[in-house]
């Protein structure tokens, strides 16, 4: 490897002034905000370390797509049904797993996420396996995203006629995702201030004490997990709508840890920080695409490796030097015994 002096690192700053760049960063950041809000509720406020969020995303996306294409339900009914299915799955997993200690629970949830991925890859009749899932085999116009594309098209027509002549195709999804993010952030903050939210915090601080006060802690933890499944499946469905094929690799375990990076960057036990964490994280990861690095030594695989390394160093560095992230409160961090 020759790191000779003739290597020029050109950063094309023009990309960063384009609205398209910010909207695409904003879209993925918004989706991850939803996903990480669920993790915030679990890990930040209930003290349960959920490493299986990618599974909830996958089930949300696949259930929605299968209901639309194979069952033939309208998209507007399929989306809420898919979310309900995922919540039910969360409760089913939580019933045995939430009785376990935090570290066992973490391992159990990552194992669950792997099982879901193996099923998505191998149950070809149901999910299309490694070919991915998009449209009905006999009808290429019957796709899981068909209804959404129609709606999205008419939103963009309206946008074009009013304030922006040339919006990118994913602009409507960006709007919808951020409306959902705002509703979810406000809603979760409100819930946290309620008596219900205070019980969750009590469980996080000392589960035995909460139980001694007569609280059915398993029930509260199940509710926490179910709400996290709701947010995760919504994020997964949005992620699917941004693609034209749902592929098992979209929901690999790495996705959960991207969401954890977002969560920790924003800060544990703070809902408003999640969106900031998501924007910063995805700005850095997506921004690396536009730093023009010379091909040897920077091949495509190596740039992917660089993104992975950034994520890894971010997690290590934050945990070592600033475990509360940007907006977290140190005194609220009950990071295990």
């Amino acid at each position, binding site marked *: 490897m020759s790191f000779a002096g003739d290597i020029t690192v050109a950063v094309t700053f023009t990309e960063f002034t384009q609205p398209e760049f910010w909207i695409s960063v904003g879209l993925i950041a918004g989706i991850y905000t939803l996903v990480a809000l669920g993790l915030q509720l679990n*890990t930040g406020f209930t003290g349960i*370390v959920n490493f299986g969020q990618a599974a909830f995303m996958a089930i949300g996306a696949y259930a929605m797509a299968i209901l639309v294409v194979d069952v033939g339900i309208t998209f507007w009914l399929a989306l809420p049904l898919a979310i309900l299915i995922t919540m039910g799955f969360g409760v089913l997993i939580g019933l*045995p*797993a939430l*009785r*376990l*200690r*935090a*570290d*066992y629970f*973490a*391992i*159990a949830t*990552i*194992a*669950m996420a*792997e*099982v879901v991925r*193996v*099923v998505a890859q*191998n149950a070809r009749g149901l999910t299309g396996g490694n070919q991915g899932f998009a449209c009905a085999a006999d009808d290429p116009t019957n796709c899981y995203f068909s209804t959404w594309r129609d709606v999205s098209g008419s939103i963009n027509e309206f946008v074009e006629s009013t304030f922006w002549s040339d919006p990118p195709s994913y602009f409507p999804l960006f709007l919808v995702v951020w409306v959902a993010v705002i509703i979810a952030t406000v809603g979760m903050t409100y819930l946290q201030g309620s008596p219900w939210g205070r019980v969750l915090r009590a469980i996080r601080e000392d589960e035995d004490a909460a139980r001694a006060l007569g609280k059915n802690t398993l029930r509260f933890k199940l509710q926490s997990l179910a709400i996290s499944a709701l947010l995760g499946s919504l994020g997964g469905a949005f992620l699917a709508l941004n693609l034209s094929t749902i592929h098992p690799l979209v929901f690999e*375990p790495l996705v959960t*840890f991207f969401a*954890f990076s977002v969560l*920790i960057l924003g800060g544990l036990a703070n809902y408003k920080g999640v969106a900031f964490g998501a924007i910063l994280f995805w700005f850095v990861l997506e921004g690396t695409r536009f730093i023009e690095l010379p091909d040897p030594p920077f*091949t495509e*695989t*190596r740039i*992917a*490796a*660089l993104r*992975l*390394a950034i*994520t*890894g*160093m*971010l*997690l*290590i*560095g934050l*945990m*070592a030097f600033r*475990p509360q992230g940007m907006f977290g409160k140190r005194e609220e*961090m*009950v*990071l*295990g*015994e």
Partner: protein
Amino acid sequence: MEAGQIAEAASPGLRERLEERLRGSPALAAAGVIAVIFVLLVISQGLHDVMQTGLNGLSLGAIYALGAVGLTLVYGILRLVNFAHGDFLTFGAFMAYLVNVTWGAPLVVAVFWAMIATAVLGLLFERLLWGPMRRKRAGFLQLIIMSIGLAFLLRAIYQWFWGTEIRNLDVNRSDVVELLGLRIGQTELIVVVVGVTVLLAVGLMLRFSLLGKRMRALSDDLELAETAGIDTRRVVLFTWIFAGGLAGLAGVLAGAITNIYPEMGFELLLPIFAAVILGGIGDAFGALAAGLVLGVMTEWSTLLIDARWKIAVGFVVLVIVLIVRPQGIFGRAKAI
């Protein structure tokens, strides 16, 4: 009539006694379950197929067990759920690849080099990360997320230097040995023999050597071990050498019978975790036994279901164990 009545009267007592025995000794119960599965499989699939898949499973099981023993000791002694352990296996595999393929040295040299290099890697991170974090009194979540970050960083380094393509060690992949009517690849046989021999040596060392006893004492109760005058710092360093070396070996063995690529360790990590939990977290003997059992069970499953589902077997066993007996087969109730 009378005899029947006596039998009926005696049978609940017998059952109760049996139940009590099994509750007292879950390892016996597990052995019973495995024996029943074995007999049922032999009846339905024939002895030859069951033995053949079981033999294949031993090579996989030895790899799981070698990985699990280090992971469980690190957990027991340092309370660290090390998600980077799988990437230690990958490190061993790539180190062996470097020596064996890139430099063209014999595999034996590569194995020793991989073990030493991975042990040094373990020590390095103990000095750089885990030691300082323990002194800071870092919590469980902090450590677990840090280990995930380390796993990503290591994987990124492999991907930078070796890319994502699938690589193989320079081993004999075609010759087949016949043993009592069973067929096994020459390399696979070597993996089984090396794996099981090292596992036996590890078991004996943990059972009888002073270091092994100290490790187990620390894993049981670190403060009590310290009070008893054990130099815990030294034992911690030896634990990392031990865990790293075995992980390196497991990585080379996995590389010899399958492929080498940056994600290989992560894919092995979850069945290894399953073995750790099955054996009871922190219990080295439990991890040894559970790793082997899990490998054999995984291969047996191919008799009944399509082989592409077999990687789910470990997780299904894990979920069943977590529901029925979360402290593992060999663990004690206080652990959950």
